[in-house]
């Protein structure tokens, strides 16, 4: 079976359990089991080749730009781990089928489990470290789901997040390390990297890479000081603990250290970091395990300790130590998985895992007891079980290890660890299974069904058999795996057997066992002392760190994004001004090339008005209506200025926009407070004033400098001037630019207007559809109102003014192409003409007579403009190509037609529609019952007198 398929099978299979759960728990479990089984078989098919020492490789390019290739390879080490992952996985699947209760969503469980399994298989088969990283992080994620599987338990949720935090951060560090490694070698392919030991170790980046990678390994394998997450992950269902936290995931770190052993090990850095960490972890885990009352916690710290052991062995950097490590990996996997499952059975049956509440179970659950006791003895390092063998070899290695010149430090501490290891193993046996049978279990325990103990039983039989026949059973496996670790076939001599003679290791074992028994005897006083002793509680530290981090994040986030746009805008100004000044100050400037132009006193007076009015707006901005009046002055002077400076089109536009804007603002102000209170403290106002002055000065200096210099190259507008008439058919170059040269801009611009109207309409609908409507309907004017809402003189004047204004609009529209004017200004004038009518006779009266459908007006404006643009397709020209020509219908004189006029009509309509829709929306806000009038004017003696006369007549 292809390695691709082996790696992919669990992922593909992961779909089924969740789907098949509707078909029943067995179907779901079978699907999961079958998947694992198929993959396992597929793996075993490669066994002969692997044992022949071949390396099986497959690969395809995935992301060649990065060197991330989907390359897999299978050698002894990969085979060992893959076999463990898939084999134990099968057992766990079986076990979980019976372990999980009816309430637990089993489909999800198997799905997560298979995802995890796939990720693990991916790690051990990857031939590309980036690919390996992908799988590596996937294990963190899938284990997050598995640990948090019991969603209702806070321990589960917290444990999952803690595991994710620790292993996740380690994984991210490892990404950095792997990237460095890949950069040193020039390839991310493992098989290449493994060939470049000298290159790597000579690199100045070796140490950073090493540290980062080891951070990943240590966190994953729960090495000190990252060991604390593992016990909390035990909140997971026991099958998860057995699988992830003894057999597989925690060994991923070990795997990687073993995988990279050929290129990373052998340096003092490696030795001191890895071996020391392993040693400390081994000792610390063993000590803590002794004082844990929770069965799974005990096993968890035991696991920590054993992982430390393996790490230490890998850290030694010798080949024989590597062999020992590989051997212990196998042994630990067998006895620890069996122990976890046994603990799970006890928990499942007795409904407690508290050692203090347990005892004497050997009578009640003999099968379980046998399995657990054998496995625990192996863990304690008692012959003839397999744990003894590897521990013996480990102790042997420590004796040969020199740590900072000391011969005794490593063996001494290792012995101490072995001693504690024996002690907690004995406690596991003695306090749970031996002793008096009790009658206060939460539930009456008995052996579970075969399905549940079959898995551990199989594992424990391996424990015994490997112990008895190590060389035959696992010798070849150890050989190929260790060969892969050490990166060559030339393993040193070693022998896997029970009896090595009276070696120092044997004596040490003896001391450990006896010492262990003594410690167990002294357990009661010791644990009392332990509980009294102050020590850091990792979970609390972690929790408070996380809380602090979260809180800090909230403070930073909320502190920075506190909703105060005044501050956002201030920061923006400061930043813009600062960066712009930086850009200016790092450049150079030549002297001015243009002369300034003199001005007359009238211009200065106008300028003076502008300046004074602007300052007055600032000074009086709290009086809102007054500031609008003052802005009116500003707008007027700006228009005068445009006219003076040869921009009549701009003057016209500015004037008409001004009127509409003013009406709009007044309409809005009607609903709003009429004054702004003083709110910002003085220093804030000074600060704002400061930045305003700096910003204004910057803008002034910039434009002054620009005006005194010529274009670096002739402006493109020379072309516009030259071709406006020839090519655009108009003499008003500004208008020709707007409707022809840059008609596309104008197209966008009318769409902006149209959108503005749509937004306003939608907003009005939203507001009037909400509770605000009731407020508006009952709103009282906040200023006293005068009578005579629709004065007669205004109405009559409007009746003449409106048609005249429309006439002017038509005039402005038609002349636009050749003289100042055009669709936009005409549209504004027409809109204001209608606006006059609204102001004169009221919204209700006028809109009843309204024949225009504003949405449609806007829409047709945009459509006409677009259609004019599209029309040019028919002549084979691009969008918005204009055409013009001359018509002659006698007796009329010849006149000019231009598609630009049609386009301008679109502009006109869009403008009229948009302005009126906006104003109409505001008027709708103000609508109240009784506001509508059936008459154009409130006072009309002709009408009223006639009605009175009629009434009098009627009475008579």
């Amino acid at each position, binding site marked *: 079976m292809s390695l691709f398929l082996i790696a992919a099978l669990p992922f593909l299979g992961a779909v089924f359990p969740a789907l098949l759960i509707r078909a029943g728990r067995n179907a779901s479990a079978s699907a999961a089991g079958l998947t694992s089984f198929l993959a396992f078989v597929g793996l075993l098919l490669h066994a002969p080749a692997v044992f022949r020492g071949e390396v099986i490789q497959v690969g395809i390019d995935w992301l060649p730009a990065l060197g991330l290739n989907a390359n897999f390879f299978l050698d002894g080490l990969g085979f060992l781990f893959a076999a463990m992952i898939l084999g134990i996985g099968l057992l766990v699947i079986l076990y979980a089928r019976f372990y999980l209760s009816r309430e637990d969503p089993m489909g999800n469980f198997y799905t997560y489990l298979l995802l995890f399994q796939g990720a693990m298989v991916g790690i051990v088969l990857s031939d590309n470290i980036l690919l390996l990283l992908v799988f590596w992080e996937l294990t963190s994620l899938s284990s997050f789901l598995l640990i948090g599987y019991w969603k209702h338990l806070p321990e589960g949720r917290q444990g999952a997040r803690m595991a994710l935090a620790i292993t996740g951060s380690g994984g991210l560090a490892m990404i950095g390390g792997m990237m460095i490694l890949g950069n040193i070698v020039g390839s991310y392919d493992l098989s290449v990297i493994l060939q470049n030991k000298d290159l790597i170790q000579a690199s100045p980046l070796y140490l950073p890479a090493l540290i980062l990678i080891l951070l990943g390994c240590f966190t994953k394998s729960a090495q000190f000081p990252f060991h604390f997450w593992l016990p909390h992950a035990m909140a997971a269902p026991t099958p998860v603990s057995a699988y992830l936290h003894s057999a597989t995931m925690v060994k991923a770190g070990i795997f990687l250290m073993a995988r990279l052993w050929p290129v990373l090990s052998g340096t003092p850095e490696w030795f001191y970091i890895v071996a020391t960490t392993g040693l400390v972890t081994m000792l610390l885990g063993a000590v803590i395990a002794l004082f844990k009352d929770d069965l799974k916690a005990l096993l968890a710290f035991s696991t920590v300790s054993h992982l430390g052991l393996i790490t230490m062995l890998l850290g030694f950097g010798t080949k024989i130590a590597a062999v020992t490590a590989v051997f212990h990996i196998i042994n630990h996997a067998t006895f620890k998985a069996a122990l976890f499952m046994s603990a799970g059975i006890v928990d499942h049956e007795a409904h407690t895992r508290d050692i203090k509440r347990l005892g004497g179970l050997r009578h009640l659950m003999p099968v379980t007891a046998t399995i657990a006791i054998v496995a625990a003895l192996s863990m304690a390092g008692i012959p003839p079980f397999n744990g003894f063998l590897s521990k013996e070899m480990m102790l042997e290695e420590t004796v040969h290890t020199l740590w900072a010149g000391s011969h005794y430090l490593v063996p001494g501490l290792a012995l101490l660890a072995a001693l504690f290891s024996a002690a907690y193993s004995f406690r596991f046996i003695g306090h749970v299974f031996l002793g008096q049978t009790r009658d206060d279990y939460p539930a009456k325990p008995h052996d579970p069904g075969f399905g549940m103990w079959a898995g551990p039983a199989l594992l424990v039989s391996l424990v015994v058999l490997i112990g008895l026949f190590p060389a035959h059973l696992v010798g070849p496996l150890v050989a190929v795996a260790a060969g892969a670790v050490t990166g060559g076939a030339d393993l040193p001599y070693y022998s896997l057997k029970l009896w090595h003679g009276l070696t120092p290791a044997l004596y040490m074992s003896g001391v450990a066992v006896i010492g262990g028994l003594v410690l167990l005897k002294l357990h009661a006083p010791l644990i009392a002392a332990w509980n009294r002793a102050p020590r850091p509680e990792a979970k609390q530290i972690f929790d408070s760190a996380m809380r602090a981090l979260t809180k800090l994040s909230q403070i930073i986030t909320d502190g920075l994004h506190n909703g105060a746009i005044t501050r956002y805008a201030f920061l923006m100004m400061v930043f813009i001004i600062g960066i712009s000044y930086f850009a200016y100050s790092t450049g150079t400037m030549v002297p001015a090339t243009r002369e300034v132009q003199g001005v007359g006193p009238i211009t200065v007076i106008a300028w003076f008005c502008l300046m004074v009015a602007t300052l007055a707006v600032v000074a009086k901005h709290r009086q809102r209506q007054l500031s609008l009046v003052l802005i009116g002055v500003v707008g007027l002077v700006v228009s005068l200025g445009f006219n003076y400076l040869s921009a009549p089109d701009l003057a016209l536009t500015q004037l008409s926009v001004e009127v509409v804007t003013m009406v709009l603002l007044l309409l809005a102000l009607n609903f709003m407070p009429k004054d702004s209170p003083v709110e910002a403290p003085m220093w804030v106002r000074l600060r704002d004033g400061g930045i305003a002055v700096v910003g204004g000065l910057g803008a002034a200096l910039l434009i002054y400098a620009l005006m005194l210099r010529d274009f670096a190259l002739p402006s493109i507008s020379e072309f516009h001037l030259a071709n406006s008439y020839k090519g655009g058919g108009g003499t008003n170059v500004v208008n020709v630019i707007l409707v022809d040269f840059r008609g596309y801009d104008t197209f966008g611009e009318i769409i902006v207007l149209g959108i503005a109207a749509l937004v306003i309409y939608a907003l009005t609908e939203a507001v009037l559809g909400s509770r605000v409507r009731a407020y508006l309907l009952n709103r*009282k004017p906040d200023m006293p*109102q*005068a009578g005579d809402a629709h*004065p007669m003189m*205004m109405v009559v*004047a409007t009746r003449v*003014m409106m048609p005249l204004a429309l006439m002017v609009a038509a005039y402005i529209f038609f002349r636009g192409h050749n003289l100042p004017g055009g669709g936009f200004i005409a549209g504004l004038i027409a809109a204001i003409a209608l606006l006059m009518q609204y102001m004169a006779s009221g919204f209700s009266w006028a809109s009843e007579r309204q024949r225009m459908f504003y949405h449609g007006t806007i829409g047709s404006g945009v459509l006409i403009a677009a259609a004019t643009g599209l029309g040019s397709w028919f002549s084979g020209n691009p969008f918005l190509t204009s055409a013009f020509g001359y018509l002659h219908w006698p007796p009329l004189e010849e006149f000019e037609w231009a598609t630009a006029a049609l386009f301008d009509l679109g502009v006109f309509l869009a403008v009229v529609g948009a302005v009126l829709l906006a104003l109409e929306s505001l008027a709708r806000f103000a609508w109240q019952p009784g506001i509508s009038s059936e008459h154009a004017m409130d*006072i009309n003696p002709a009408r009223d007198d006639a009605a009175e006369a009629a009434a009098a007549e009627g009475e008579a």
Partner: protein
Amino acid sequence: MFFEYMIAGFLVVSGTFGFVGSFGLLKLNDPMSRLHAPTKATTLGVGGVLLASMLHGVVIEGHLSLHELMITLFLFLTAPVTALFIAKVHLHRHETPSSLPKAGEDGIWATHDVDEHEAEADSGSN
């Protein structure tokens, strides 16, 4: 030459009236009187300028353009409305029915004739 003097005359007169109108705005001491100065003097001032402009167009530049008349028309149409509204603002804010002459048979001036339903709504809300 005659026309040039005439144009110049119009310009001078109009400038004077324009100035006087705005000067009145400063000088006159009661709000309603201030309303007189700009509405009229300014109109005449602008009217003069427009006449000058038209004459200038015909005489100096040699083409008849009458659109100045449009401006005059607009000013005559709008100025009374403007004045009316500003006067109403004054009435609304500073005069009461008793401070004004009787409004004949109608009893009250329109500005002070607040709609009944509005008055009702006011009292209803309190």
